[in-house]
């Protein structure tokens, strides 16, 4: 399959070819782009969570120095377009209209009500403060549970906050038994565990704030945007603003991180688009960090009600999941699809005979939520891995024993789960064995025991997370069956230049993943050309006309496979030409290490030579097109199912609640690894983001609906200094859904690490009667939990906490 003489590129820890330009910033970040005559935008945002706009006085702003114009929602008509929801999860989903710039009513604090156009960004921002908006405050729906009870309506015209109720039931689907029966039986002669867990609201907090430049001066309107999804943005612009697709070019230049936060069609993009078209000049908008935290979409924010039924010996007989999911003020592009993506993962790696999942999505007057690294699967993994620990306690065995009793054995693959998904490959025993060994599991358990008996003020806890996830979005048919608005295929093209260099065009749109390096390695092996000779082109709808972009750990498993298939087509096209030039029969040719050679002779031709011959086309066989360039579009038949075992040791100071991470080990099975260095980077970053949910991060609103964690002073984003050195390793059971055997890794760390950490914290203080601590597990909460044997209290939703003394539960 790959070159034999030369060292394989696949598996090499290549340094990322894109880093030099990305790290130095001397590259095409959207905010670096400057066009002739370009004007700058500043947004006027509502300070209220819910209010009617009674008047907007723009006269003072218009009179400000170098202000070109000030526009409000009322100044635009249809051409402003709308922000779309691409995934109505039920036919009767209640979906509020989402104007990029409403003219009548604002539904969350930070919503845009006017835009200032000026000659410099600073002048635009100064003038924005001069726009005088009169509001009539309306009661705001803020608390998720109260909103679900329709106490206050976020969008009065809709009459309810309940957006959609989506159910999967294994009995109805014919993929398993009836969960109510299982629970009823367990109540009589088994174990029933009921828990409610909170998934706090998180902020993606990508490094590069969102930025957009619109250039209406050419034949095509061009939008440069710091987005993960240029192709989908183009589609949505055409669909909602009445500009033909053929007139729209969307470019995602170098993009500095996304984590799902740039998987969106944003009001800022739509407004810049409308303003650019209106005034016929290039315009730029770059958000400030505080705007980013307030108006970039948030993630998670769910309540999880869980009922687990098991036999006395710990064999799980059924699992029932009831979710409340906070959509925020609008149904975003994926919106309610996020919890649905988790629906098939609550059974995780286990053989559950019966399963029921139901989610109620709810509208509130807070920033809208959408995909955030893991999207649905971290929530699912957290719920199941936390409650499996509870089951272990109930049965009185080691949590690993309970897991082994219920998980799918390696010889049982391929395995069809209670959700009807077919897991193609995996080996949970192997990954767990390796992790235990690296972790020194038994020794740490012994130390934990010893500390307990000694009554050490610093207790030790061990947390386990044996996770799997479905990634590589996605089989288009499956997405279709779930009413998702698009497919899940990916497109690629491989072009041979006259001098034998290779141009790879991919529809995936990198924003820090290292595609250029990894894809080059794949093609270098496939075509037997030097790594340096491969150029990867992406992120521009004109360069890469077809694609579905980057999210859901799909770029390698879907996009990579498309590249492989396009490369193979190039070889197939070259073969008859090589035979002709070598005056041999096609059947006598073999291709390896980038060379066609005639069996049993020393005759041969390199693929580069053939590329040149095709370019001149002086001597080609009759009827052969003078090109080697090839396309491929790949639609996977199934997801890929990476899995792994994560072990975490936490030290808890029972006198102060202070936490200290002692050790973190993860052994992930992500199939074939293209570049171990990139994988390590993805795993490390993923782990930190997951650990951050467990220990640090939370988006907090006060009782008037203001985001009070609206800066990095209050939103605790970890740095390398806050974390320890992780011990990461891998086991490999290649995926069968793509020819490279790869599985996604972009989200694995985030999905797996959160429950491992919280399990460890709870394990350390369980002897105080604690069985849950609400995330983030701050020292204060841990201390309170120890004192009260409770959850450590909810987050006080006040900007001025001391005004709410006594209210803190």
């Amino acid at each position, binding site marked *: 399959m790959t070159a034999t003489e030369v060292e394989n590129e696949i598996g090499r820890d290549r340094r990322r070819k894109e880093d030099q330009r990305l790290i130095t910033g001397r590259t095409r970040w959207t905010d670096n782009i400057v066009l002739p005559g370009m004007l700058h935008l500043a947004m006027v945002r509502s300070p209220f969570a819910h209010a009617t706009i009674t008047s907007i006085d723009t006269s003072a702003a218009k009179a400000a120095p170098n202000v070109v114009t000030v526009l409000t929602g009322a100044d635009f008509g249809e051409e402003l377009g709308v922000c779309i929801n691409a995934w109505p999860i039920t036919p009767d989903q209640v979906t509020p209209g989402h104007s990029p710039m409403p003219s009548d009513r604002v539904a969350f604090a930070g919503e845009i009500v006017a835009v200032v156009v000026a000659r410099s960004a600073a002048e635009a921002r100064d003038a924005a*403060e001069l*726009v005088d908006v009169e509001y009539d405050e309306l009661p705001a729906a803020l608390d998720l549970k109260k909103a679900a009870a329709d106490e206050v309506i976020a969008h009065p015209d809709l009459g309810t906050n309940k957006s959609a109720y989506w159910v999967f039931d294994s009995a109805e689907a014919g993929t398993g038994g009836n969960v109510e029966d299982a629970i009823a039986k367990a109540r009589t002669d088994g174990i029933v565990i009921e828990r409610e867990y909170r998934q706090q609201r998180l902020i993606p907090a990508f490094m590069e704030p969102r930025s957009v430049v619109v250039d209406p001066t050419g034949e095509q309107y061009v939008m440069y945007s710091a987005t993960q999804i240029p192709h989908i943005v183009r589609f949505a612009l055409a669909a909602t603003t009445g500009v033909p697709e053929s007139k729209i070019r969307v470019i995602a230049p170098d993009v500095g991180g996304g984590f799902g936060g740039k998987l969106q069609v944003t009001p800022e993009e739509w407004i810049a688009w409308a303003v650019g078209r209106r005034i016929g000049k290039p315009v730029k908008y770059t958000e400030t960090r505080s705007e980013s935290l307030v108006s970039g979409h948030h993630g998670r924010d769910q309540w999880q009600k869980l009922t687990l039924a098991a036999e006395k010996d710990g064999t799980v007989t059924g699992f029932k999941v009831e979710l409340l999911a906070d959509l925020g003020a609008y149904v975003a592009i994926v919106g309610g699809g996020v919890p649905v993506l988790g629906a098939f993962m609550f059974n995780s790696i286990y053989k559950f005979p019966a399963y029921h999942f139901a989610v109620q999505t709810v509208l509130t007057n807070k920033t809208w939520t959408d995909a955030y690294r893991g999207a649905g699967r971290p929530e699912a993994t957290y719920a199941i891995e936390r409650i499996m620990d509870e089951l272990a306690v109930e049965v009185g065995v080691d949590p690993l024993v309970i897991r082994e009793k219920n998980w799918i054995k390696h010889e049982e693959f391929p395995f069809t789960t209670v959700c009807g998904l077919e897991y193609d490959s995996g080996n949970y025993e192997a990954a767990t064995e390796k992790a235990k060994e690296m972790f020194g599991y038994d020794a740490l358990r012994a130390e934990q025991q010893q500390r307990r008996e000694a009554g050490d003020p610093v207790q030790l806890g061990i947390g386990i997370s044996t996770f799997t996830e479905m990634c590589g979005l996605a089989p288009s048919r499956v997405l279709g069956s779930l009413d998702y608005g698009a497919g899940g295929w990916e497109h690629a093209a491989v072009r041979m230049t006259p001098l034998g260099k290779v141009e790879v065009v991919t529809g995936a749109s990198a924003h820090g993943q290292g595609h250029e390096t990894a894809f080059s390695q794949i093609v270098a092996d496939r075509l037997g050309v030097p790594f340096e000779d491969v150029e990867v082109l992406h992120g521009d709808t004109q360069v890469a006309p077809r694609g579905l972009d980057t999210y859901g750990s799909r770029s390698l498993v879907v996009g990579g496979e498309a590249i492989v298939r396009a490369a193979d087509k190039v070889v197939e096209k070259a073969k008859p030409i090589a035979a002709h030039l070598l005056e041999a029969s096609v059947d006598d040719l073999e291709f390896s290490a980038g060379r066609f050679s005639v069996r049993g002779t020393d005759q041969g031709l390199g693929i580069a030579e053939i590329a040149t011959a095709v370019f001149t086309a002086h001597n080609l066989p009759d009827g052969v097109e003078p090109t080697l360039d090839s396309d491929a579009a790949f639609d996977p038949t199934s997801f890929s199912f990476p899995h792994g075992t994560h072990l975490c040791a936490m030290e808890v100071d029972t006198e102060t609640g202070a936490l200290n991470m002692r050790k973190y080990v993860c052994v992930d099975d992500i199939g074939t690894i293209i570049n171990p260095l990139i994988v390590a980077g993805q795993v490390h970053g993923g782990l930190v983001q997951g650990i951050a949910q467990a220990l640090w991060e939370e988006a907090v609103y006060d009782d*008037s609906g203001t985001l*009070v964690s*609206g800066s990095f002073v209050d939103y605790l984003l970890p740095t390398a200094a806050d974390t320890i050195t992780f011990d990461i390793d891998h086991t490999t059971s290649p995926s069968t859904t793509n020819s490279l055997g790869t599985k996604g890794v972009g989200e694995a760390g985030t999905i797996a690490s959160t429950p491992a950490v919280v399990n460890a914290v709870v394990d350390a203080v369980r002897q105080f009667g604690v069985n849950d601590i609400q995330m983030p597990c701050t020292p204060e909460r841990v201390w309170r939990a120890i004192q009260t044997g409770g959850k450590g209290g909810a987050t006080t939703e006040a900007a*001025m906490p001391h*005004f709410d003394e006594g209210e803190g539960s």
Partner: protein
Amino acid sequence: MDLTHRFTVPTPVEQTWAHFADIASVAECFPGAAVTSVEGDTFAGSVKVKLGPIALVYNGSGTFVEKDDTAHRFVVDAKGKDKRGNGTAGATVTLTMASAGTGTDVEVVTDLSITGKPAQFGRGVMQDVSDKLLGQFVDCLEQRLGGEAEPTVPHVSVAETPPEQPEREGPSEPSTPKHLADPPADDSLDLGATVLPVLARSYWKPAAGALGVLLLLWWVVSRSRR
């Protein structure tokens, strides 16, 4: 839960109560506040606050929504909007007086609510901000009622009994107190003073560290100069 301040003034309750007929003088006790007009039980004015880089000018009005001359209790509802769109500030001040011997116990219960930028940025700072605002408000009332009593923190009662300034007395000339014409030079409340201690508390260690490094450098350099 509201924030409560208590203090005692040596004037009899009736006299103290009469003083509060002068709406303007009460309203002006809000730091950085300037009263521009008074009509009946309603007054209009502005409050200036500097929160680091954010300069806020709240223009708004207040009303005596409740005034009970017999129970010596009133409730002022004040609401202001920042003129640069940075949100609103609202306060409901409930003041009650009770006779305590020759003096008067005054209780001020304040419910302060702030929206927009200051709330978003100042989660930690807002607490100190509102404490400072209210602290100054109460100190001011205390001084006006108790005369030259030096600015004291709430809960401390004033011992002396200096007579009240005549021009402040009675409802006869309430609506335009003198210094409305010429408001204090710096009429804005700079919260730098408030924020600094907060920062100091959080960052003194690194700061000290940095200082140490600097000193070391200076020592090295000065030695190498020899």
